[in-house]
């Protein structure tokens, strides 16, 4: 177990180095940070001075190593634009993004698991047809377009829900639906497939032969085994959703780190972009590890090697 954890952590660490290295080079291609820091009216001398002060004149790998070294201690430097510490800025905003991500994945699971289960249990029923519609539409609906349509109808025409900001839970309803809906088809598909497979399995027959109530058979014996793959996929989707939060946060004016990364890209605020890429990547790595551990707990056959 310990050896496994160490191996996984080492691999995760390597992944983060590669990802951050790539991003670092990419973002340094895009803009001269000295200019961004100096502001519009700076003279050439000012810019040169800043370049030397921050060490932008050194080879990029040295800059990267220095950045990575500090990043490991949680120090991502200062935002060129806001002048604030990047760690502070992200700490203040990550909550919004995480809430949105968690709400969205919960929404997706709450929709997709019951729908998938019912679809598996009662093929051709009305619910199953509804599930079909959800799936076919969900896969083809551009998220941002769906979000805009919701704003038009729910926000402006009917005035049911607040359109922008994050003051109350009501502000999260539309973003959650917009973001969560996209993950629903994949999760539902897997739930249904898993459920059909499990319901036809020998151990479910055993459970029924034991005279267990249908509820126990369904929830204790079938669902647990059927959602094992769903958990793993949900973790992957959670990662995707954090990425997708960029568009959604921008549309709904939710100032999480998705929005922050968009804003930072617009103004070439490299330390912020790098830090957020690294955080998204770390989240993915941690989440997949967590998903594997949860799986190991749900399914004792997956021994933690």
């Amino acid at each position, binding site marked *: 177990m310990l050896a496994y954890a160490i191996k996984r952590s080492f691999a995760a660490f390597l992944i983060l180095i590669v990802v951050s290295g790539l991003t670092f080079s990419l973002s340094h291609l895009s803009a001269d940070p000295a200019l961004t820091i100096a502001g519009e009216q700076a003279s050439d001398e000012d810019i040169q001075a800043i370049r030397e002060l921050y060490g932008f004149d050194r080879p990029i790998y040295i800059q990267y190593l220095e950045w990575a070294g500090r990043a490991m201690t949680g120090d991502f430097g200062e935002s060129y634009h806001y002048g604030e510490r990047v760690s502070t800025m992200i700490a203040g905003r990550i909550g919004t993004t995480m809430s949105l991500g968690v709400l969205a994945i919960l929404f997706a699971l709450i929709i997709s698991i019951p729908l998938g289960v019912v679809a598996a249990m009662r093929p051709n029923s009305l619910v199953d047809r509804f599930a079909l519609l959800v799936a076919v539409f969900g896969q083809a609906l551009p998220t941002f377009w769906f979000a805009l349509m919701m704003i038009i109808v729910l926000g402006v025409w009917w005035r049911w829900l607040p359109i922008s900001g994050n003051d109350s839970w009501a502000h999260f309803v539309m973003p959650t639906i917009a973001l969560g809906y996209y993950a629903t088809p994949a999760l539902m598909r897997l739930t249904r497939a898993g459920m059909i497979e499990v319901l036809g399995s*020998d*151990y479910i027959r*055993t459970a029924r032969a034991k*005279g267990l109530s249908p509820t*126990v058979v369904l929830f204790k*014996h079938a669902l647990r085994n059927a959602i094992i793959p769903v958990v793993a996929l949900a973790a992957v989707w959670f990662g995707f959703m954090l990425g997708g939060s960029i568009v959604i946060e921008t549309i709904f004016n939710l100032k999480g780190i998705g929005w922050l990364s968009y804003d930072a890209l617009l103004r070439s605020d490299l330390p912020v972009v790098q830090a957020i890429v690294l955080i998204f990547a770390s989240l993915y790595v941690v989440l997949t590890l967590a998903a594997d551990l949860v799986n190991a707990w749900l399914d004792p056959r997956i021994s933690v090697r």
Partner: protein
Amino acid sequence: MSILEVENLTVDIPVAAGMLHPVRSISFSVEKGETLCIVGESGCGKSLTSLALMGLLPKAAIRRADKLLFRGEEIGDLPERKMAHLRGGAMSMIFQEPMTSLNPAYTIGDQLMEVFRRHVTRDKAAARDRAIYLLEKVGISSAASRLGQYPHQLSGGLRQRVMIAMALMCEPELIIADEPTTALDVTIQAQILHLLAELQNEFDMGLILITHDLGVVARIADKVQVMYAGRTVEEGPARAVFDSPQHPYTQGLLRCIPIPGKTKRGERLGAVPGIVPNLVGDLSGCMFRNRCPHAAPVCATADDSLVTGPDGHANACIRPEPERVAEAVA
């Protein structure tokens, strides 16, 4: 009073091509402490018969029976909820596939105790004691520590022992074992059968053993029922059936196995040639006729009901041996 009395049990399954008739009007009964063996080839309807008894047929299947008496009470029309209370309690079942019949996500202790706590008492400690007692009974060493293990940590033989223990948890009066040894190694097969027979004796239960292995039947059966294509073709006390098989199918089957003391060393084992017929649509006559060495045109139309002999030994051959002999003489 029989523990189980079945009269004219029929199972129909609608399929794309029409109505499939996998079990057609079969009857039998099991007494306390008695072992009934149902034998036949794959697809003869014996597994469906067992599932029909337990009320575990697939949703699409239609079950009908003139009588389905368990402990003298009709269970054919019991609602699912009441049926569930019988299953695992007074009647339990052991399946063919020990490797997959246990839920991989729970410990065997959990799965053993679960059935006890459902039918007998919610008391966890009592369930645990019972589980340990039975695990020891079925020959599993250090039973207490096994409770915390997961199925994948056990071998196939051990799992089948666990399945047997599970079937015994609530002191059932009837156990239905559907080919409990097919998936196991030959050496372990013998152990498990021996165990089953022993436990049946000890707890004085009725046992229905479903198998295609006549060797097994010869060793433990009190009564034998031979099924072919959804019909009972021969039934009777084990000794009678083995000593003088009457139906050509039974005769064919018996030639396929070496029977201790009967088959001579070096003798060729027979085989039943041909394939099992399609059971979809309207069926009439003897279904074995296309494989039967003695088939005659009358076999296609005549009634194939069982005709019982004086010792309770019955068979369904339309042209029973005396007729065939008579023909041969004529």
